[in-house]
């Protein structure tokens, strides 16, 4: 009788412990997801390094293929800045194909905005960012290939 009671107590203790463990793990996972932020792009490896014109050409030739390769990837793009455009308290950097008007546009990660603000049209640079793929703009009759969370890698 006493042995049975001891066994039952042991089983209840184990079940309680398992339940607490599950609650703790679930809570930890929830806390992690809710507080997760993006890594600094400066510390993230590029999947590709390409010239601005080559990337624009790839999208103009076949945007489905280009999206399959580049979209949602961290990419380093080298080229000559064609435009610096104000966006709120920050700036966007553009590389535009002078023939078609298609362009790459980079929105900067907050901790790297100051580096972008000193850039000027004509500067040769390498910029790394997360490629969001393209849309074909009916307003501009050109491809827009946008990047988010970008950082300036080098100003040549």
């Amino acid at each position, binding site marked *: 009788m006493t042995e049975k009671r001891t066994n039952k107590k042991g089983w209840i203790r184990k079940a309680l412990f398992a339940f607490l463990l599950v609650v703790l793990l679930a809570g930890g996972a929830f806390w992690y997801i809710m507080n*997760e932020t993006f890594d600094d792009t400066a510390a993230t490896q590029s999947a590709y390094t390409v010239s601005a014109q080559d990337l624009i050409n790839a999208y103009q030739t076949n945007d489905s293929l280009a999206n399959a390769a580049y979209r949602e990837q961290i990419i380093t793009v080298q080229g000559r800045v064609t435009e610096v455009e104000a966006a709120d308290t920050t700036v*966007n950097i553009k590389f535009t194909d002078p023939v078609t008007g298609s362009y790459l546009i980079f929105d900067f990660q907050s901790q790297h905005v100051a580096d972008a603000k000193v850039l000027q049209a004509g500067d040769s640079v390498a910029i790394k960012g997360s490629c969001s793929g393209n849309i074909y703009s*009916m307003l501009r009759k050109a491809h827009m290939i946008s*990047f988010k969370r970008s950082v300036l890698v080098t100003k040549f």
Partner: protein
Amino acid sequence: MKKTVLLFSLIALTATTGLFAQTKKTTSAIVAFDATTPKDALPKAENKTVIAEIDTKSGQIGFEAAVKNFTFTNPTIQAHFNEERWLNSDKFPAFTFMGKINDVTKYNFSKNGVYNVTVTGQLTVKDKTNNVTTPATIEVKNGTLIANASFSIVLADYGIQVGTAGKIAGEPKITVAAELK
């Protein structure tokens, strides 16, 4: 003498139209999306690479935004935003708004000042189009137009169901800010 006057007139005309072209444009308009609720402060994002154009004469307005370029602070929420049951950005990569400024002839956008206007148009999200009417302000500063607007949309109107958990607002606030040159 006549030739000189004509030449000066042409130069003056070119300078004026150059300074205040009829169509004002930017590729760096900002559209913010806020679907936060008391239960969840994470579903909000911003896109700083939105294409915008305003024709100051006809009042035609256009905005185009890449869905995937909306930036969230949280990677998981950003992934949810783009997935098939929400915005399905692989299949529907752009938000568009095409509309006009109502009674555009009432406003003189070639003159500096702040103009309170009403904009009416069609917002297309996930290939579903609905009418939107919103008040907006347009400030003219030496040929540059600074436009601001804020309105809400009903996600269900665009085929997006938010569920009953109360973690995502069914009528998120959309804020638009653009500096058009």
